């Protein structure tokens, strides 16, 4: 199979990895699989779309593409706004729904069911507001750059890859070198002991939501830029995200990113081998394989 497919897979994998990092963090600290995480990605993309649209309407010059990329300044500014808005959204959903369920010690099943309900609500709100029609940040076309070895990539794709890697590295440094990161890792392992050690667990939970939502927003903007923006974009990513988070090992940020890249590349390989309609099956196969062979994933702790 040609190396171009691998590169495409790598870039798709970077988006999956970014989302998976968000999931692995919230999963390890909130301790339930949040089926609404995909919707955070979608909302992030749409927040950016809305803000970029408003900015573009108000200040037309901002839409001129920053060469060699396909988007103008509206997008980076909108992306930052989207991060903030997404974080707010996540906190609202947590305050209204999940924290209340947590407070009465709800079982995992109830939390997951609630996340299902929240996902359905969020997704359909998007479809109501923006309709199901695919949308794009920009109409400008891009010419792929030859990178040698028969590989080509657009500047947008390369930028996305770089940003994804930078963001994930940043998160990793946050976790390993800062006080907040230590607190997050402690809460992930043993919330009660963290409490005794002086960690404000509620505060940490809120920060994890913010971080997860922020990462989701970046992933959403990336996916929206490189592919398209649709209300189901998050739902479609949900299985690959979970598969990547589990393959990487719940709680491991480098693991989630690496696993995301692996899944992206595997999907590209599978598409080349059996056709694009089977792309979604790849995550499922990987997921089952991991759960059967090594449930703790690449870097996780055995239960």
């Amino acid at each position, binding site marked *: 199979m040609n190396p171009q497919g691998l590169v495409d897979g790598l870039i798709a994998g970077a988006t999956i990895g970014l989302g998976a990092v968000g999931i692995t963090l919230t999963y390890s600290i909130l301790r339930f699989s949040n089926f609404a995480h995909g919707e955070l990605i979608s909302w992030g993309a749409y927040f950016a779309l809305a803000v970029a649209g408003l900015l573009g309407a108000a200040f037309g010059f901002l839409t001129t593409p920053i060469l060699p990329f396909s988007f103008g300044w509206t997008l980076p500014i909108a992306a930052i706004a989207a991060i903030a808005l997404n974080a707010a959204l996540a906190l609202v959903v947590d305050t209204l729904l999940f924290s209340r369920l947590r407070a009465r010690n709800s079982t995992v*099943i*109830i939390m997951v069911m609630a996340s*299902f309900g929240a996902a359905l609500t969020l997704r359909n709100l998007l479809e109501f507001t923006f309709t199901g029609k695919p949308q794009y940040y920009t109409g400008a076309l891009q010419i792929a750059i030859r990178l040698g070895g028969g590989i080509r990539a657009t500047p947008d794709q390369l930028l996305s890859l770089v940003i994804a890697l930078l963001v994930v590295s940043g998160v990793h440094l946050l976790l390993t070198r800062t006080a907040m990161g230590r607190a997050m890792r402690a809460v992930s392992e043993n919330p009660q002991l963290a409490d005794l050690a002086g960690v404000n667990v509620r505060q940490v939970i809120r920060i994890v939501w913010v971080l997860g939502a922020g990462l989701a927003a970046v992933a959403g903007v990336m996916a929206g830029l490189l592919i398209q923006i649709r209300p189901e974009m998050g739902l479609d990513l949900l299985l690959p995200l979970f598969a990547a988070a589990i393959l990487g090992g719940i709680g491991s940020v480098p693991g989630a990113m690496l696993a995301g890249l692996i899944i992206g590349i595997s999907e590209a390989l599978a598409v080349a081998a059996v056709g694009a*309609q089977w792309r979604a099956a790849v995550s499922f196969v990987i997921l089952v394989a991991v759960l059967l062979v090594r449930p703790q994933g690449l870097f996780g702790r055995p239960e």
Partner: protein
Amino acid sequence: MTIELIAYGAFFLTMALSFAIICLGLNVQWGQTGVFNVGVSGFVAVGAYTSALLTTPPSDAHLGGFALPIALGWIAAALASALVSFVIGAITIRLRSDYLAIATFGVAVAVQLCALNLQPLTGGPFGIGFIPRPFSELAGRPLAFSLLNLGVLILLVGGLYFFLQRLARSPWGRVLRAIREDETAARALGKNATLFRLQAFAIGGGIMGLAGAVQGHFIGFIAPDNYQPILTFQVWAMLIVGGSGNNRGAILGAIVVWGIWAASAAMIGAVVPADQQARAATLQIVTIGVALCVILLLRPRGILGELRVVSRHLDARPRDAASAAPTKEVSRAERS
């Protein structure tokens, strides 16, 4: 006019009861074995397609054309789903509940993908049509037709209900209950806990497959689009609203939730202008999503339910929200 109303009422109830069958199957999986199956739509689809392929006349669009009698199709659907459930269960049943949720979610996605892509077998996105409907010879007389179909479903649901109640009280059911209460003790008595749970899981899956077949034959047409995650969500909503862990709750929940769904769809159809109908439908789903969250917040036990503890692993976590190791800590503290 009254005839049409009765016919419509019968139609509504028939659909609701077909969902009730799915709920009963899910209740076996959830109530008896504590398996959190988020891939319900997949098992329903397996049953629907099995029966459709076996009972439809020959066609270029898909495999099959065996034109077998409906009853045979339904039995085969239940068996096929039960078999698939057994296999899936064997792989996943030991997983903790949210990994299990993800895995079963993946199963549903995979099943739908197969239905969509294996076109020569399943008819692909076009689905399978001309599925024989029970009492089709009476199609010209809507009242008799709908009432007879309703009758079939009432018999089916009633029969399943009594079967499941008997099953729960049987020696087999007692072993399952023992496993649910204290798996270690049950194992110590020599019971192969996993095998029992697998059997229950398979029975539940088989029931779901039967429901899929019933729905397919009732409507006469199936397509991959019928088996999206929203079906799973509807069924879980029915079980939660009606009262999970409880067979009567399963049936009641199906009727109530289906009623709300159909009523809101009808209201939208009547009130909203045609070009806005698709958008209105999304709002309908938003309301239902919100309603489910509200129910989970206010009355997670549902209408009839006792959210009975299924197993220690699904117990509510202890009082302080920051605790990490649920049952361990409490028992230790109680010792000193």
